[in-house]
């Protein structure tokens, strides 16, 4: 096949008003029509959007879900979180590949299908999971996979697949302050109007609400700074990228508490005088698009979104949905803003910060889904209500995604200050060996640390809690995490671009039984380097799994080492393979051993 231009390109461009900031949304539409993005399409797009061709090519090359070459009519991507792996995803992948007679990573000769891996898809409470043509399917079993294989083999259009395949379950196991207190659409906004903007901002300040997306920055301080920044235009951005493996609480909040999240965004807009908002949704959560758009529409019809909100003249605010495209780094706030502008998701240099120079360099408030939800509840019920639970430095509650070796994986709301043990008990964890809190970027706790508390000042969490029982190989866990970071590094800065790959190689070597003490030393020095000199949080945290493993489970690593001496960094004997093949030799001199004579 030569290189055709996307069939519907002019329609797609028209739908997006030829707006270059919508490049990523446009590319999604091209993918939906063609399944890949051809060179000629890139050229045509750059012409129509007035962008340099290289820039468009660079955007296509940055995001995992944009494909510069044909990759099968059905592209199947197995979620590669450690919980998927523990639930048997690798074996299931092989099962499907055998059923469809295709090599993983390769397009089948007839162009029908390609099978591969993707970073955690956020269905860890109902894994193992996969994406087919971008649509999520959870609770994989051999039976469900044979249905999927049949549908692919019969070339059934995905729209005609049985809907129950795509059903995403909900598992709220514990609701506390935020999730059990009602907040009817508009109620918090009316409370704001009744109390007044300044008093509401003060209330938010007294609540000491800290960001729920990871960094824990004071929300009122952020909003106040944005309100004070000069200029007429301001933006509100909701970070629903939720890329941290093991995290899915924002998925549940957007599915079941969307109005409260939108209400929080609208309150922010009122307090900082913003007119436009964006909800940046990870592409893995495609199934949330329709319900979210419906919620926007419903609120517009109720006068809660759009022009003259609540009938107040000049209170104009509306929200657009933007999809990510498979790049974890776009959860980092400044990379997210780049992505919203239609660019590669490279974190910006700071200062200046988004509150003064955000979307299109205009003052911008950017918060996590849960932060907006909490802000709405605080506007409605007040700071005192919120501060009734939690610790002095971590007020209120935290919504968690609990997964791994627990009987009841799902979503839990706990007051800050709860012990990790209590959380695990409630979820039904047995024989805990270790817990990964806040995802690979967070910390690994050993069984002796379970009485530590969930709190910014002790064990902070952006949402994820993954339990590993005694049967799990913690080296395999670390290897999975290290591989994740190597795949997701944006490549901007030297320490993370190279360090994540070096760490992946070392962990692969150790786990496969070829590691040496020298590899361990390198892991340590690379970790120090990445922490000290990376440009953004991804690089700062990417070595955490390695550092925690070596600090808390060193004997497990040492026992796995093949030697204390340096061993070859590559398979020596295999390196003679090509020459053996051509010469037909197989004598002793045609082989090399790992350790030498």
């Amino acid at each position, binding site marked *: 096949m030569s290189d055709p231009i996307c069939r519907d390109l002019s329609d797609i461009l028209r739908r997006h008003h030829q707006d270059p900031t919508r490049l990523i949304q446009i590319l999604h539409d091209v993918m939906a029509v063609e399944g890949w993005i051809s060179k000629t399409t890139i050229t045509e797009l750059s012409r129509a959007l007035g962008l340099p061709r290289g820039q468009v090519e660079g955007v296509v*090359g940055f995001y995992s879900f944009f494909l510069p070459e044909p990759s099968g009519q059905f592209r199947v991507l197995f979620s590669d979180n450690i919980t998927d792996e523990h639930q048997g995803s690798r074996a299931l992948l092989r099962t499907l590949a055998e059923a469809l007679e295709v090599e993983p990573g390769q397009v089948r000769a007839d162009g029908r299908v390609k099978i591969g891996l993707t970073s955690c898809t956020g269905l860890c409470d109902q894994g193992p999971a996969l994406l087919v043509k971008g649509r999520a399917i959870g609770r994989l079993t051999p039976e469900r996979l044979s249905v999927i294989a049949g549908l692919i083999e019969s070339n059934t259009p995905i729209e005609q697949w049985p809907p129950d395949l795509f059903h995403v379950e909900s598992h709220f196991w514990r609701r506390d302050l935020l999730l059990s207190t009602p907040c009817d659409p508009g109620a918090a906004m009316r409370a704001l109007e009744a109390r007044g903007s300044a008093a509401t901002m003060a209330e938010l300040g007294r609540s000491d609400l800290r960001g729920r997306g990871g960094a824990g920055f004071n929300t009122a301080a952020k909003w106040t700074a944005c309100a004070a920044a000069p200029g007429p235009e301001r933006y509100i951005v909701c970070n629903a990228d939720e890329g941290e493996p093991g995290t899915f609480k924002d998925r549940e909040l957007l599915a079941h508490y969307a109005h409260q999240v939108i209400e929080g965004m609208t309150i922010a807009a009122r307090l900082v005088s913003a007119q436009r908002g964006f909800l940046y949704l990870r592409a893995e959560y495609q199934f949330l698009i329709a319900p979210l758009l419906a919620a926007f529409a419903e609120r517009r019809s109720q006068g809660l979104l759009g022009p003259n909100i609540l009938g107040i003249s000049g209170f104009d605010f509306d929200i657009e949905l933007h999809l990510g495209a498979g790049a974890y780094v776009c959860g980092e706030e400044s990379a997210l803003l780049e992505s919203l502008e239609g660019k590669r998701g490279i974190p910006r240099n700071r200062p200046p910060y988004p509150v003064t120079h955000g979307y299109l360099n205009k003052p911008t408030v950017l918060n996590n889904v849960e932060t907006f939800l909490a802000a709405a509840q605080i506007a409605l019920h007040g700071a005192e209500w919120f501060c009734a639970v939690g610790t002095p430095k971590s007020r209120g509650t935290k919504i968690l995604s609990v997964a791994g070796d627990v009987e009841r994986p799902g979503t839990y709301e706990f007051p800050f200050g709860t012990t990790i043990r209590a959380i695990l008990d409630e979820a039904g964890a047995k024989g805990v060996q270790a817990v990964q809190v806040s995802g690979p970027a967070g910390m690994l706790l050993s069984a002796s640390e379970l009485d530590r508390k969930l709190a910014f000042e002790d064990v902070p969490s952006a949402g994820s809690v993954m339990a590993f029982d005694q049967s799990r190989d913690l080296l395999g866990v670390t290897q999975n995490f290290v591989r994740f970071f190597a795949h997701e590094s944006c490549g901007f800065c030297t320490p993370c671009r*190279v360090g994540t790959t070096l760490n992946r190689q070392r962990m692969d070597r150790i786990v496969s039984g070829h590691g040496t003490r020298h590899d361990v030393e390198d892991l340590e020095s690379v970790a120090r380097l990445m922490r000290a000199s990376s440009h953004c949080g991804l690089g700062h945290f990417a070595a955490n799994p390695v550092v925690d493993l070596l600090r808390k489970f060193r004997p497990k690593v040492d026992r796995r080492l093949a030697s204390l001496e340096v061993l070859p960094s590559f398979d020596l004997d295999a390196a003679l393979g090509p020459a053996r093949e051509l010469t037909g030799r197989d004598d002793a001199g045609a082989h090399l051993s790992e350790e030498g004579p």
Partner: protein
Amino acid sequence: MSDPKNTFSLDGHEVPVTAGQTILQAAEASGSWIPTLCHHPEFEPHGSCRVCTVKLNGRTVSACTTPVRAGDVVELDTEELKGLRQNLVQFLFTEGNHFCPSCEQSGDCRLQAVGYALGVTGGHYNPLFPSRRVDASHPDVLLELNRCILCELCVRASAQVDKKDIFALSGRGIDKQLVVNAESGRLADTNLALSDKALSVCPVGAILKKRQGFLVPIGKRTYDERSIRERDLDRAKEDPQ
């Protein structure tokens, strides 16, 4: 002693600072060298190579992008930071294919010269031996991506000075790569001209003017006679920012 209100501490010495200066600018103005690779005084600081990493009040930051204020404490040449910079240079050698003896840029190359200045003798890490493109299609220019350190200077120069956008970046992580603004991907199919700024900013031997290689004898090349430290500081003196 200078007025304590207008100085910061650089490795224990009080150094003057003017408002808006970055750590790099203030250090250079005072005659202290900080190694850089992705930095070019005519362009906005970039902060990607990280070899200018210093400690500002105990926190590691890139000196090229970070403003310094009176009263700050900056650490530059501690053993820890020197080791870190050496490792970063080794990372760059490890991820590309650098064979200096046959490189046209040898002697004029910033990566090499910074390696010398930092006392880097060997790779330490196992080389990745990537398979990268060489583009010889253009009559006057050779693109040798095996040596590209992804500093984006050519991208920035072509966009901001030449207004041509001939270079861009694609891929991510270790697969990040320089691409050429043409459907064919070939330099010959762009409007690149010999006078373009983009041709004169590459810190290494990745963008080369053809028929210029090895013209200058060993001993007379940029960093043969004067070290990169001396050269950078001379430049800073001539052109205080």
